[in-house]
């Protein structure tokens, strides 16, 4: 697989390590009343779709950036690559 890095261009997937579903960016509020349950779901449950999947890849052998890659799990086709930083910022999750 070739991942089209937003800053570096097309890179071999071998340069990356894989973490998992991009929903891991959405850490629950630890002060919420249902925090224990929310963290259980966040940590352990997955949609695991057959088809489009948004997932976190880390460019370990490159610029050490985290990417959100949208990929089809049935065909391995990569549909979209974003910097995880931009995704988190857009969602108001990251510090400036």
């Amino acid at each position, binding site marked *: 697989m070739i991942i089209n890095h937003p800053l570096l261009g097309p890179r071999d997937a071998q340069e990356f390590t894989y973490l998992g*579903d991009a929903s891991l960016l959405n850490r629950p509020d630890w002060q919420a009343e249902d925090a224990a349950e929310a963290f259980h779901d966040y940590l352990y449950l997955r*949609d*695991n779709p057959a088809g489009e999947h948004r*997932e976190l890849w880390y460019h370990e052998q490159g610029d050490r950036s985290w990417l959100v890659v949208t990929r089809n799990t049935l065909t391995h086709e990569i549909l979209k690559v974003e910097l995880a930083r931009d995704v988190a910022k857009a969602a108001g999750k990251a510090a400036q």
Partner: protein
Amino acid sequence: MRFSALRLFKEALTGHKGWGPQWRDPEPADAYDYVIVGGGGHGLATAYYLAKEFGAARIAVLEKGWIGGGNVGRNTTIIRSNYLLDGNEPFYEFSLKLWENLEQDFNYNAMVSQRGILNLVHTDAQRDAARRRGNAMILNGSDAELLDTDGVRAMYPFLNFDDARFPIKGGLLHRRGGTVRHDAVAWGYARGADMRGVDIIQNCEVTGFRIENGKVLGVETTRGFIGAKKVGVSVAGSSSRVMEKAGMRLPIESHVLQAFVSEGLKPFIDGVITYGAGHFYCSQSDKGGLVFGGDIDMYNTYAQRGNLPVVEDVIESGMALIPALGRARLLRSWGGIMDMSMDGSPFIDKTHIDGLYFNGGWCYGGFKATPASGYCFAHLLKTDRPHETATAYRLDRFMTGHMIDEKGQGAQPNLH
């Protein structure tokens, strides 16, 4: 129809005209007591033991494609009982004991071959871990033997013993482990279940569950609605896709594991060898091909095919362990989709929906578990209580903190 030497002799004299189909191809009935979703090894074993050991009647196995076409036909055929943790080892030991009697039990030649599994160690720490695991195995009724370098050399003199980085310092030998003819397991269970009245319905995909007031009433399929008092789902690899139809999210990711076979060679590996310094395991089939595999591909996929980086990694590990491997040509490779669970261990449990039961999360260790998985799932379906060896395989164990994490990797499915 029973298989026997006498029967074979008679058929040989009469032109082998008396062999019939080994199982029927029935139309689905309107309703059953038990519907098993998934005609793989585990599903067929469940139906077999439900009928044979638990005396259940009116059972159907629904299979989307053809039986045995999933992971029971795509694995590296290894059976073993060499786990460390209390939640696992009694279960796998129960499974191995079932394997040991399987062929007599279902009157089918599954070519169960207890040729021994050797886990190599390369460091003092690994030897300590092997000793500890060996003791845990013995405590649970399995067998284990710690070998030193000479002991390993006597078995497999061609291994790369004096590698500068990963010299072989010994190994943990599990003599009762071995290999089985994987397809025959599916066929044997199918035949045994069919003989006891189980309807095996192929080309019948489950498209949904009919659930009312928290109770399952049956399944919607491509061949119409089929009513059921109890539904057991046993579709490892596609568990998330099927259970999603019942509104459930699972602690599972789907990953691909590749496996490889070399061209046929003269016999030189008579057991199963696993490398301790990388992920690589190898045995030799009765046809002479070296059967080997290694890591999963590490990313979510349902594609049943992997990518080249893992091929390279597996072959490198193989070459590091068995330099002679470089002279053999690779005949074929394939991929199977694994339910990778959050702690590397499986589930055999009820769900929150009355009458709906789930079996899955086998990671890449499902094949060896086939008999016990079927037996324990049948036990659960019939009695509503887990079998004594499968009490730990609960769906809520992440909520209660009772994970069964053999490798201590945490909630990172691709590392188990």
